[in-house]
């Protein structure tokens, strides 16, 4: 299975929460910290379930999410 992680651009996010609704593996949760515009920015839980599907980034209106695929080194 693919492994991935996301980075949410703290200042670009507007707290619309569409990414949370989109995430099928529940790796994003509502955040408690506000950015300079006053929006509460969601947080990436990072519990190892993210599969780099990019659906959160696709739905994000602000292009505020970067998605990374984690590639294990060959043994």
């Amino acid at each position, binding site marked *: 299975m693919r492994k991935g992680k996301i980075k949410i651009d703290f200042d670009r996010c*507007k707290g*619309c929460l569409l990414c949370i609704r989109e995430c099928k593996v529940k790796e994003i949760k509502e955040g408690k910290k506000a950015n300079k515009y006053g929006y509460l920015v969601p947080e990436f839980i990072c519990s190892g379930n993210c599969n780099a599907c*990019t659906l959160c980034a696709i*739905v994000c209106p602000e*292009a505020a999410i970067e*998605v990374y695929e*984690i*590639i294990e080194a060959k043994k």
Partner: protein
Amino acid sequence: MEEKKIYSRPKSLRDVTMSYCPGCGHSTVHKLIAEVVDELGIREKMVGVAPVGCAVFAYDFWDFDVTEAPHGRTPVVATAIKRVLPENIVFSYQGDGDLASIGMAETLHTANRGENITVIFINNANYGMTGGQLAPTTLIGQQTTTSPMGRDAANYGYPIKVAELLSQLEGVKYLERVKVTDAPSTIKAKKAIKKAFLNQINKVGYSFVEVLSSCPTNWGMEPTESNKWIDEKMQEYFPIGKIKDVEK
């Protein structure tokens, strides 16, 4: 262990916070257009025409040439630019008032002349910029600031299905209605937008994409609720899908 970036902000979208509300469809479509421009490698040929409406500041969000236009005259300004610079990729980006109200004649005649431009229509069933008044696309029964009792046909007429209206014109080659309420529909919307630009590049002709878009602020709903309203209510009246697709 290696981290490979597989999704990031498109280059043609400037690294600024867009002025749209949280969850607004404009932001999403701006992003999709920027992604399509990057993928097709046409940034240096692009000339966009911004409307009067929430997207009046579009020139601050895309990193390619964009001009203002008088309200509703957007596709006419685009037509002139395309006729003067036929090798450039020119598009008109408009909302409900700009395209279907004050600019209805301009929309129809540009389509009828079959100008080889791309038209992106953001349908959010109200006039956003000015505070949520009735639009030609407002649904029957929908409350707006100028239809506080809800739109009724006797006083306001019926909502206009612009894509269907244009479908009868010979000059129109491609019409599709899409939405951006979740990732799958956003992916489909991007495909339609890409096709509309490819049609221009391949000289197929007038191509029009209508996007059902949320306006959380004026609808008085959270972004997630707004997208549900599109899925359940708007889509009922404005069917999603291809209305016309004529290959050259």
